[in-house]
């Protein structure tokens, strides 16, 4: 499909005519060509976000939020003005919270076992995690749906939670395992020699050390859950989550409240990330 390729390549290319005039010309162009490309790609990546934020302030009349009609804060005052949307957001946050807790607990144990112990069958567990991460989302969703249909399980809030834990626990396990591999086992041995039981050792020694990995895994699980559309759409029944609402609305017209909620979630995520980065930097110093 050569035509597709050539059309898609419309992505802004820094046009740099070859200038063999001066010997240094090539080196100079090489110096700014790469940053220019990098910034262009970053601008491309951020364009939809900027549009989303800006059109949250759009003074729309009627249902459609397409043309710029002036600045307003009305959409922010009226964020929870659409019952279906508010309900969808509540569902998403609730499901993300529950499934994050479950996936973090299950995934942390798995990651600890794989990172610390050599045991019969560990290879097949790794393979299972790998298959779970590598399997296409449509297939994961379709397989769960097949099971629920066959067993006559009604789909809704609960089945979404079950699905979200299923697809995010492997990510937590992999993250925790990476942290666990770097852990010095003599710490735990020392705790045991000093008379701490396995539970005390876990909570007072192991957990604090692997905490960054656990937290990173939990954040990942939360982000995956709140963002998921494909697997959720297969197992949602009549329950609507935030991505499902937006997808449904994309056919009829997305209300500006979606932009506002998207902006608020974005800001929250960015603040958490910056705060995390700053606090970890401070600790290192």
């Amino acid at each position, binding site marked *: 499909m050569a035509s597709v390729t050539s059309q898609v390549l419309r992505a802004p290319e820094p046009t740099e005519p070859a200038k063999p005039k001066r010997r240094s010309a090539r080196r100079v162009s090489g110096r700014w060509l790469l940053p220019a490309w990098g910034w262009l790609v970053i601008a491309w990546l951020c364009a*939809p976000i900027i549009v*989303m934020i800006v059109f949250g302030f759009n003074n729309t009349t009627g249902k459609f939020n397409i043309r710029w009609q002036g600045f307003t804060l009305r959409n922010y005052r009226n964020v929870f003005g659409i019952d279906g949307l508010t309900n969808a957001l509540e569902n998403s946050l609730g499901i993300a919270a529950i499934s994050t807790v479950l996936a973090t607990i299950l995934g942390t144990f798995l990651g600890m076992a794989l990172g610390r*112990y050599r045991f019969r069958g560990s290879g097949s567990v790794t393979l299972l995690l790998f298959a779970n991460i*590598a399997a296409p*989302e449509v297939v994961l969703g379709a397989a769960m749906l097949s099971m629920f249909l066959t067993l006559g399980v009604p789909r809704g809030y609960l089945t979404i939670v079950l699905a979200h834990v299923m697809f995010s626990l492997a990510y937590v396990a*992999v993250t925790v395992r990476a942290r666990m591999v770097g852990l010095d086992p003599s710490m735990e041995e020392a705790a045991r020699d000093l008379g701490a039981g396995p539970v005390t050792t876990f909570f007072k020694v192991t957990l604090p050390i692997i905490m960054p990995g656990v937290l990173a895994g939990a954040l990942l699980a939360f982000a995956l859950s709140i963002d998921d559309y494909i697997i959720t759409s297969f197992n949602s029944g009549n329950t609507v989550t935030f991505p499902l609402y937006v*997808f449904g609305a994309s056919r009829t017209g997305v209300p500006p409240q979606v932009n506002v909620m*998207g902006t608020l979630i974005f800001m929250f995520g960015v603040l958490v*990330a910056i705060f995390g980065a700053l606090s970890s930097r401070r600790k290192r110093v």
Partner: protein
Amino acid sequence: MTAATIAPPTAPPATGKPRRAGWAAKLVPYWLVLPGWLWLAVFFIVPTVIMLSVSTMTGDIEAGFKQTFHWSTYTDAWSTYSVQFIRSLEYGAIATLLCILIGYPVAYWIAFRGGAHKSSLLFLLLLPFFVSFVIRTQSWNFMLSDNGMVLSRLRGWGVVSSHFHILQSSTAVVGGLTYNFLPFMVLPIYVALERVDPALLEASADLYASKFTALRKVVFPLSLPGVFAGVLLTFVPVAADYVNSSILGGPKTTMIGNIIQTQYFTNLNYPVAAALSFILMAILLVGVFLYARLLGTDDVLDAAAA
């Protein structure tokens, strides 16, 4: 394999206390693995087996489906929807290639020229992940629509004719897929490039290699594991995606994910839907496992986690 021995990272000879490795201690890793394993068994392995069984049933939604080991559903499904299968793999391949072409220079730029701002630049690159995938795709639909900000402006400048559309074309779908999965390509390549020892570059310069030769013969081969991990992280989700083709595409860009969804929810033809899912999984997973076998499962998993 003498079960549960503690595996220290530096792996000194296992002189560790054989006294303590009693029965209870040997079982520790199994207790740790059990809950997560059970969850995956019940909600990942069992459903997959059930889906396999559903795929060979016959019947309809009214009368119910019965197991008849009707394997020809597979050949029928393939011959009916091979166009969409091939299209999905094609879009996946093109988008993955575009991700490499667009993303590699960016990863190179951040890894070698990022200086003190590396983490800030990476953060900018990851900003899209703080916005829902569906919203980002919807945002492109909004920008590229016929009356949207891009086309109406271009039309005003006389750059494009009034018959020019972007939406509903394969360009829009592949563009959206490339956009959505680009960071998954840049990150592993960046991680691989970051591990390249600068001393190697100095050495190649000392040996009179030009910058380009050093890139081609030293840096690029060393970054290949990152490229491989990136291909894995982008190709599978791109080929199986249907959000982009639903929001940005039209009837001519239907991908196999759309078909599976329609078969489940509109046509209520569960055997065909299950068979299609299975074929898709077989194609992608067999590909992925061969690919991972070639490169080592752990390496790819670690690269994916990094």
